[in-house]
C-alpha cells in the first residue's frame, strides 16, 4: 500500500494543487449564488429554476465545471486532512489514513463522473 501511495503521489499532488487553485476559484461563485444567494432569497429563485439550472449544467462546459467542483475539492480535502493527521501524531498510521481518505476522494470523484454524465 505504501509503495502504491508513493507511485500515486504525483497524481495526488496534481489533483490536490488544482483543488486549491481551481477548486477555490470555482467554489467562490458557487457558494455565493447556489449555497447562499438563492436559499436566502438574495438571488431570485427563477435564476436557478430547474429548467435553467439543468440547461446550464447539462452542456459540455457545464458538466466539466461541475465535475471540477465535485472532484477537485475532494482531493484537496483528502490530502490536507492526511497532512493534518500526520501533524497531530499520526505518522505511524499514515498509510491507513491516506488509503481511506484518498479512497473517499476517488469514490466521490467516480460518483461525480456518473452524476454529470447522468444529467
Amino acid at each position, binding site marked *: 500500500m505504501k509503495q502504491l501511495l508513493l507511485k500515486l503521489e504525483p497524481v495526488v499532488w496534481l489533483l490536490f494543487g488544482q483543488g*486549491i487553485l481551481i477548486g477555490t476559484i470555482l467554489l467562490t461563485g458557487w457558494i455565493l*449564488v*447556489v449555497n447562499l444567494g438563492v*436559499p436566502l432569497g438574495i438571488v431570485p429563485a427563477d435564476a436557478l429554476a430547474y429548467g435553467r439550472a439543468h440547461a446550464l449544467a447539462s452542456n459540455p462546459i457545464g458538466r466539466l465545471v461541475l465535475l471540477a467542483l465535485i472532484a477537485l475539492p*475532494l482531493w484537496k480535502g483528502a490530502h*490536507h486532512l492526511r497532512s493534518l493527521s500526520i501533524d497531530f501524531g499520526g505518522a505511524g498510521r499514515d498509510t491507513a489514513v491516506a488509503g481511506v481518505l484518498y479512497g473517499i476522494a476517488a469514490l466521490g470523484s467516480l460518483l461525480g463522473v456518473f452524476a454529470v454524465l447522468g444529467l
Partner: protein
Amino acid sequence: MARAAHPEAMAPSKPGRTRTAPPQMPPKFPMQGRYRAYTIFDATGLVYLLMGFGVLHAVRALGDGAAAWQAVLAGWANPVYVAFHLLALASVLFVGVRFFRLFPKAQPPRIGPARPPPGPVIHGMLYAVWIGVSVVFVAILAGGIFR
C-alpha cells in the same frame, strides 16, 4: 503544545554514526504564532471535502428531476446549512488569500530560457483571474447572462 514528534520524522536515508536529539514538535504548534494559520489551512480540508460531496448531492438531485432539485435548494435555507456555507465561504477566501500569497514564492527561478514574472505581477494575475472568474460565474448562475 511541545511533545515528541514522530521518531523517524527527520531520519536520514542511511543510518549515520552521528547521534542526534529526537525531534520535537515546535512549542507553538498547533494554534499559536505562525502555526495557527498553518493548522487552519490544513483544517479547511474538511470543509472542502464536505463541499465536494455537497456539490455531488446537488448534481445528483438535478439529475433526479425538478422536485429533488427544489428540495435541495429549500433545504439549504436551513440555518445549519447557512452557517456551514458561511464557514465554507470564509474557508475558500482564507485558502485563496494564503495560497495566492505563497504561489509566487513556489515558482522556479527559470523555466528554460524564460524567467517567471516578478512576484507582485504573478500575485496580481492570480487575483485578477479569481475575481474575474467569480464575477462571470456569479453572473451566469444568478441569471445576469445566458438567460
